[in-house]
């Protein structure tokens, strides 16, 4: 394959390899939901709304031992970089809904709520790569905001290798870079360092993968602080009663 004469040595938006894009997070943005949050990382915006615990229908989906978590990831029609995204479930969005659910399930504890469901809806009005990670970050803030018992928050970020450069938090241009690109979205439980989501596009060596996972976990710690601050901010303003 013909590789561009210049390989990727400097990030196109001027960030250092371990820098994250600017992040903004807020809890309680959707009034009618039981819990909600938005999470922006660069040009990727994710809104999450949590409803429940509530009655689960059809009945055969109910679990008499515990509550059930259900996630739905959806990109808005105008959110993509190129063509209009067709609304409704697609092969891709179903997959992401499933991995989001599996990334969040290890922290939440719904034993108190048998036969019920907690619904999480993630909507992305605008995306620039890393949308499933932004969705997971938003969803975990929203779940905490809804008062769901959980061990910890979940934090997610993408790491990868663009040509020869190992980077954290890829944007769309980096993902689409010519030549060899590996894109690895990961989700971490910050207090234990456990990984609850790990996917990959591309090729990478074992050593590089181990190093990137370490750097990704460190990046997650920074995002974790922002998530916590978002939740605490909601109830700021004199809690001295």
């Amino acid at each position, binding site marked *: 394959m013909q590789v561009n004469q210049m390989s990727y040595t400097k990030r196109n938006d001027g960030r250092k390899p371990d820098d994250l894009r600017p992040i903004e997070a807020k809890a309680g943005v959707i009034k009618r939901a*039981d819990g909600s949050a938005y999470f922006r990382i660069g040009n990727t915006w994710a809104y999450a709304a949590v409803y429940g615990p509530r*009655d689960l229908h059809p009945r055969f989906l109910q679990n008499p031992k515990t509550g059930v978590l259900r996630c739905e990831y959806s990109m808005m029609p105008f959110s993509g970089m190129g063509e209009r995204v067709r609304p409704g479930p697609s092969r891709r969005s179903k997959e992401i809904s499933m991995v989001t659910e599996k990334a969040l399930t290890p922290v939440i504890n719904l034993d*108190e709520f048998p036969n019920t469901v907690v619904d999480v809806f993630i909507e992305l009005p605008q995306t620039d790569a890393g949308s499933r990670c932004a969705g997971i970050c938003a969803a975990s803030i929203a779940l905490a*905001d809804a008062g769901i018992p959980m061990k910890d928050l979940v934090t997610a970020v993408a790491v990868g290798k663009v040509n020869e450069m190992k980077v954290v938090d890829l944007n769309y241009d980096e993902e689409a870079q010519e030549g060899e690109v590996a894109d690895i979205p990961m989700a971490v439980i910050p207090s234990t360092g456990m990984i609850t989501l790990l996917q990959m596009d591309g090729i990478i060596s074992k050593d590089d993968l181990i190093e990137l996972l370490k750097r990704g976990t460190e990046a997650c710690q920074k995002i974790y602080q922002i998530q916590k601050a978002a939740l605490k901010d909601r*109830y700021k303003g*004199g809690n001295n*009663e």
Partner: protein
Amino acid sequence: MKVSELKVQDKEIVVPGDVLADGMEYLPASGTYREDNRIISARLGLVHVDRRLIKIIPLSGRYMPKRDDIIIGKVIDITIGGWRLDINSAYSAMLSMKDATSDFIRKGDDLTKWFGIGDYMVSKIVNVTSQNLVDLSMRGAGLRKVKGGRIITVNCNKVPRIIGKGGSMVSMVKMATDCNIIVGQNGFVWILGTPENEAIASEAIAMIEENSHVSGLTDSVKEFLEKKTGRTITLSIPTNEEAAGEFAGESNELH
């Protein structure tokens, strides 16, 4: 043994995953869990330290049915054995015929003669099973179907604040607006008065709900009510008013 150490202050806001204490001296209570030597928060809320016990007072979350709570429910279905009520929770509640009324109900009688679909009633939870099946009763002082007025929904975690110490907050709103108000533990609030006064009362309650964690709330609510109603309110030491009014015994925790 290592000395135990508290990592947070009393009444501090914590999020899931925050370490609350280190060491075995402290005991984890509701909303927390122990991992190794540490006690960690399992939900969003305010820390409450009671000697060795550490618990979280939740700020959000849906109503969980609790025995002996007095709640307001809405009839959503009529079954062979009684009525099914929506109680603003993940679970609905059953009101059986024998707990509903002292009237004699003939076999095959039309149950809508007593309560129809859409009726709101003040009732008491008599039992909650492990699977969260809820039984209600209408036997007790002040338990009845409510007629007229309006129902507003509030966050059930703010109910103790709306009621106030010994019912002080809700009686202030009642006194200022001449409304009859019943606050259910599940977050349904019934208000009856003139339409203008009902609007003022529901606005005041929304204000209490919004600012429940701010100090000096009583004064700002008083000011709001005085401005809206144009009368001066004297804050009296709360007395035990009629039993149905406030269920003062249920209020507490946040104070």
